[in-house]
């Protein structure tokens, strides 16, 4: 046996086993995570359904096509509503509005969250104080009551629903993103970028943001879940846009037509289960993101980061 002092070529990983770009290992982690895969599979199914809805069930899904309150049959797989609409068509078409609202709300809230979070963290001082104050106030205002009141006040329509959900939903993501951005802001590489003369915008979006990918994704998913759930809630209360076909409206009508009273469970169950499945799928992906970025939550551990701080 010999001892050799070897000069390692520079590209060899010195500290971490995977010589990959961190983001790529994140993607890899997600792609090998069972929860994420399940979640993504479910989401893909729903997205496909939403996209294919006009092909699968052409025409207006709320059109009256058959006898009222028919049980599931070969012709109407999920039966019909009290008005004689095909429940399956309503459900499949409902995914369009629900997913659309969810995604729009998710992206919009996350986007605002990113802007607020980054600006807050980067500029600090007064801007931070002011923005966090606003964020915290919005966070504390009880969401659904505010939602109900807002929805009652603004002219109905999908736009209003989205607007209202974004108004009540952005603060959560802003807070999470701000605290993450703040911790990245205090990293030396941001100071280093300042010292090397980078401009604010570039630092925020090129230096800080890329390091928040997983948190951004997490908040995005959470916001989408929020959007879908809150839209359903609003619509159930009759405060949504009654002219669209969506899961929430399907449930509103189901309640209105006494679906449960008549024992027409098939009218009531599908939309609720769809909401739950989508929310569950997104939650699964979210937990997977957590697990991938926070190895402690996983069963298997990777070598710990060696951070021995010389100064307290």
């Amino acid at each position, binding site marked *: 046996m010999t001892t050799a002092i070897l000069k390692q070529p520079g590209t060899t990983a010195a500290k971490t086993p995977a010589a990959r770009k961190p983001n790529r290992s994140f993607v890899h982690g997600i792609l090998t995570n069972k929860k994420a895969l399940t979640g993504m599979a479910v989401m893909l199914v729903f997205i496909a359904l939403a996209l294919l809805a006009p092909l699968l069930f052409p025409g207006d899904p709320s059109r009256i096509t058959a006898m009222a309150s028919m049980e599931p049959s070969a012709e109407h797989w999920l039966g019909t509503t009290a008005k004689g609409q095909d429940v399956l068509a309503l459900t499949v078409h409902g995914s369009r509005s629900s997913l659309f609202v969810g995604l729009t709300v998710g992206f919009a809230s996350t986007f605002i969250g990113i802007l607020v979070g980054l600006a807050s963290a980067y500029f600090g001082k007064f801007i931070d104080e002011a923005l966090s104050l606003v964020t915290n106030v919005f966070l*504390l205002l009880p*969401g659904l009551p505010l939602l109900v*009141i807002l929805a009652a006040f603004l002219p109905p329509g999908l736009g209003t629903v989205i607007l209202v959900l974004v108004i009540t939903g952005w603060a959560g993501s802003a807070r999470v993103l701000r605290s993450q951005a703040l911790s990245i802001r205090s990293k030396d590489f941001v100071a280093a970028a300042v010292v090397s003369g980078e401009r604010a915008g570039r630092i925020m979006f090129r230096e800080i943001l890329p390091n928040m990918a997983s948190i951004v994704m997490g908040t995005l998913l959470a916001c989408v879940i929020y959007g879908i759930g809150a839209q*359903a809630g609003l619509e*159930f209360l009759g405060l949504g846009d009654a002219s669209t076909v969506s899961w929430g409206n399907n449930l509103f009508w189901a309640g209105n037509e006494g679906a449960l009273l008549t024992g027409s469970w098939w009218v009531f169950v599908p939309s609720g289960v769809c*909401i739950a499945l989508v929310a*569950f799928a997104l939650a699964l992906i979210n937990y997977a993101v957590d697990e991938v970025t926070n190895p402690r939550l996983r069963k298997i551990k990777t070598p710990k980061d060696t951070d021995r701080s010389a100064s307290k």
Partner: protein
Amino acid sequence: MRFILRRLGFYLIAFWASITLNFLLPRFMPGDPVSRMFARTQDRMQPEQIEALRKLLGVDDRPLWEQYIGYMTNIFTGQMGVSISRFPTPVTEVIASQIGWTLLLGGTALVIAAVVGNLLGVLAAWRRGGAIDSALPPLLVFIGSFPYFWLAMGALYLFGVVLNWFPIRHAFTAGLEPGFTWEYIGDVGAHLVLPALTIVLVSIGGWMLGMRNTMIATNSEDYITMAEAKGLRPGRIMLRYAARNAMLPSVTSFGMGLGFVVGGALLTEVVFAYPGVGYQLLNAVQGLDYPLMQGLFLTITAAVLLANFLVDILYVRLDPRVRSN
């Protein structure tokens, strides 16, 4: 102390913001309550009646800032006006008769969900990969993915209508004389079961997972290792060392959770016709009862803020680090 004062300052600002928001919102509204009521009574009202109503209800054309000043003074003198749909009952009176039920429902549900959820979270984290840890989280998350109202309707139908195990509406049987009798308390309890259960079911998963995750993070802290090295008994380490610290984020989210519970309670109350403020809020919104709506929103907000403030005080008791600076 200073921390408390700062938080207090923050809550005051938040409260002011909600007051202002509350003031501005109804003014964006197209139409006015009188037309709305007119619409509802389906033409059983004379134009003169309508004009009279309008005057009576102070739906006036004063400049906005004047209305704002008037509004603020009213709030700070404890006057929230008179309910339109319940005219001439003062808004405060309408709210007072209902806030208790919401506190009961929301409070019960929140406390049960938080306590049970956190305990489950502690156990799951402590026995990583054990039965609780592997089976419960996905199940609870799945249940939690259902909308409040959907579960509530399902529970109502299944346990109330089909199985007839629990009452399906109201906070107690109509006609029962409220009082400290076993009959009444039992009746209120029976009426509470289904609504509280649905809220608990939907929200418990979040508590459990939150606690589990912080607990896992806490478990790898040095002081846990140190406690183990000290040869302390596992139960003591779990509760006094790990859970006691992991609890702190939970305490903060308890305040936040409150807002959601109020929301969840709103939907649940509507389904169970439970006479809480959420239910009343929906009524007020549907009846375009501005003063009541404002009063309710303000009350809910004030309650949430107050609860958060109390939670902050509690937090200070629990976390010595905050206490000293």
